[in-house]
């Protein structure tokens, strides 16, 4: 055997480990790396521009003075002063309003704190087409067309109907939207008795320009209670001039806070095409309460019919056993976009038709990663929901999925997934699909999708990221009939790996 390094080198040299790289990976990584490099450069450039905006301009001024005649110097100096005043002067709210409302789409995550409860809504604004869409925490969908149609659409999953009404001709018309937020601020800011404070501030690690106003008796109410004081703080990116966040506080008598809202704003390239894209069933009843006009109305009213099976519409609470919590409260991982705010208090009961049970218990599980790093795939449905070591299966990095075969078709009303609740992590690109096709090539229903940038390549999602807790994530699946359940994820805030402690699927046999 070897006596020294020479012999070991010979030994290793004969190992013949296959280490030839794949050209596809090389090229893909090259693109990713250069994109990361450019993104890092833009980020660094933005901060350095904010720090020293006028240095090069001053040099330009000096050179101009040295090289030009007096009249030219005067002209140049005026010109430079004019440029500086426009581009490097303090950002005005008018500029913010213009820059924000010229974007094709605005997406906002709005978290409202009211009466001890927290709810998080999402809304999309299309300033071009004058449309807003709001997806509320309880699954209701509100759509306002404040352009030519002047209609408001409200869908309630509880009522299982969509109401169509006319928008009020004046005043607040109900849709919480960035349109009204920005315009309301502008209206108040123009009033003689309102002062707008402007300052530079830090928000989510970036320097922002903050605009703040304080308005007494703004003439609005919160659930019937008059707001006596409204405080609005809007924050804008000084580079893009666009709104990035807002804090709204509505106070009642004696300074009691009636409601508080926190807005996080982004600008996607596209938004929902219509209310159906947000999950309104195409078969839903439409109740049109608008005044009928001569000609063909845009939406034909349909009569409300009696449900065919009244017995099946009765819902009962389904008991979900929870594992013990590993941490108190829900600390939020920072810098996760589209992150749902934690709910205060326990989750409301999950309602489903009588006879609904966990039909996934003990059912077989397959995965895109057939060789988990830790644990085995049967842990996904073994009933052990605790966060201890030995209770979870760890799958490889990147996009991975597990598929549960329910072994026959069920009406699936909901499912609960626990990825890993030892720490308050957020798992990325969580996508949940139901199908009767084991390969998920046909008849696939997506019931949850937080992949907002479509990095998983399945479709762009509109659900919020959420923080793992011992409650798991309850997903309403609305009675979809399916045999197979597939859950995707693509790493988490702690590492690039994917974990499952347990998945419960609540359903009953297809009738």
């Amino acid at each position, binding site marked *: *055997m*070897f006596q*020294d*390094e020479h*012999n*070991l*080198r*010979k*030994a*290793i040299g*004969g*190992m013949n*480990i*296959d*280490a030839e*790289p*794949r050209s596809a*990976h*090389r090229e893909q*990584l*090259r693109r*990713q*790396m*250069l994109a*990361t*490099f*450019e993104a*890092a*450069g833009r980020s*660094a450039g933005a901060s350095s521009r904010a720090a020293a905006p006028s240095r090069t301009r001053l040099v330009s001024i000096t050179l101009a003075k040295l090289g030009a005649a007096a009249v030219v110097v005067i002209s140049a100096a005026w010109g430079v002063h004019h440029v500086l005043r426009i581009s490097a002067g303090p950002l005005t709210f008018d500029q913010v309003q213009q820059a924000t409302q010229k974007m094709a789409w605005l997406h906002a995550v709005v978290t409202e704190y009211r009466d001890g409860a927290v709810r998080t809504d999402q809304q999309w604004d299309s300033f071009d087409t004058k449309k807003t869409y709001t997806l509320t925490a309880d699954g209701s969908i509100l759509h306002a067309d404040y352009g030519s149609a002047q209609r408001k659409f409200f869908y309630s999953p509880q009522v299982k109907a969509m109401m169509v009404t006319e928008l009020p001709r004046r005043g607040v018309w109900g849709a919480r939207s960035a349109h009204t937020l920005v315009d309301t601020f502008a209206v108040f800011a123009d009033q003689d008795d309102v002062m707008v404070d402007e300052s530079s501030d830090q928000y989510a690690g970036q320097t922002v320009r903050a605009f703040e106003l304080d308005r007494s008796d703004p003439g609005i109410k919160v659930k019937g209670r008059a707001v006596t004081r409204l405080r609005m703080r809007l924050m804008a990116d000084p580079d893009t001039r666009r709104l990035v966040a807002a804090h709204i506080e509505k106070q009642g008598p004696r300074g009691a806070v009636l409601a508080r809202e926190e807005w996080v704003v982004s600008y996607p390239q596209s938004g929902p095409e219509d209310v159906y894209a947000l999950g309104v069933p195409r078969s839903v009843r439409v109740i049109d309460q608008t005044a009928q006009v001569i000609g063909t109305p845009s939406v034909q009213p349909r009569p409300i019919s009696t449900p065919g099976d009244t017995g099946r519409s009765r819902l009962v609470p389904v008991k979900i056993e929870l594992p013990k919590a590993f941490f108190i409260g829900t600390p939020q991982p920072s810098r996760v976009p589209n992150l749902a705010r934690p709910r205060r208090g326990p989750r409301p009961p999950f309602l489903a038709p009588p006879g609904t049970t966990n039909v996934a218990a003990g059912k077989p599980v397959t995965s895109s990663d057939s*060789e988990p*790093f*830790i644990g085995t795939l049967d842990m996904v449905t073994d009933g052990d929901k605790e966060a201890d070591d030995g209770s979870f299966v*760890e799958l*490889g*990095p*990147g996009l991975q999925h597990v598929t549960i075969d329910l072994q026959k078709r069920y009406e699936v009303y909901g499912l609960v997934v626990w990825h890993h609740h030892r720490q308050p992590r957020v798992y990325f690109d969580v996508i949940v699909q139901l199908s009767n096709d084991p390969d998920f090539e046909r008849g696939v229903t997506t019931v949850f999708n937080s992949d907002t940038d479509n990095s998983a390549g399945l479709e762009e999602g509109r659900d919020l990221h959420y923080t793992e807790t011992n409650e798991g994530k309850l997903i309403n699946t609305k009675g979809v009939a399916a045999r197979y359940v597939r859950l995707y994820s693509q790493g988490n805030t702690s*590492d*690039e*790996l994917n974990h499952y402690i347990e998945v419960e699927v609540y359903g009953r046999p297809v009738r």
Partner: protein
Amino acid sequence: MAKPVEQTPYDDLVVQAKTEAGALARLYDLYYERIFKFCVHRLYNKTTAEDITSGVFLTVAGSMRDFKGRTEQDFRAWIYTIAANQANAYIRKTSRRKRLMENVVATRRAAEPGVSPWSQLDWPALYDAIGKLKPEHQTVLTLRFFEDMDYDEIGRIMDIKPGTIRVTLHRLLRKLKEGLRDDLGGDL
């Protein structure tokens, strides 16, 4: 006396790569295969090695503008440090590598029944013996014997004095020999 800094034709490229994507792409072409092979030799699995290689270059891309080094030697030490750290972090976090190693050992043994053609150098036993070392020690072996680096360069990557690397390697070789002697029933 400190070893003089080695000059290479790519020193300027390193400086340019802090601001120019084209220069960074050329550095990538120079180092992609080296880092990938290093990862394969550390992890014994090409798919995992691709993942770690991706992590290494994305880290480099994100931090290149802040990289303080000015020579290719600096860059090489930096990128191998990142690779070694990421590979070691991966190994600590997973139990898969152990299984992969066991698979490699089993496959090799199945392919070499009876009297091994390597009667003097038993590969499965060597894999096995390397796998029993600490991740940092495996890194030392990989850098020395797969990447052909000298003690100074390994020392820079691992932030350990070259003399310590020399002693560590000596002890590792002895440990490997002992491990192999046990594995082969004292036939050493």
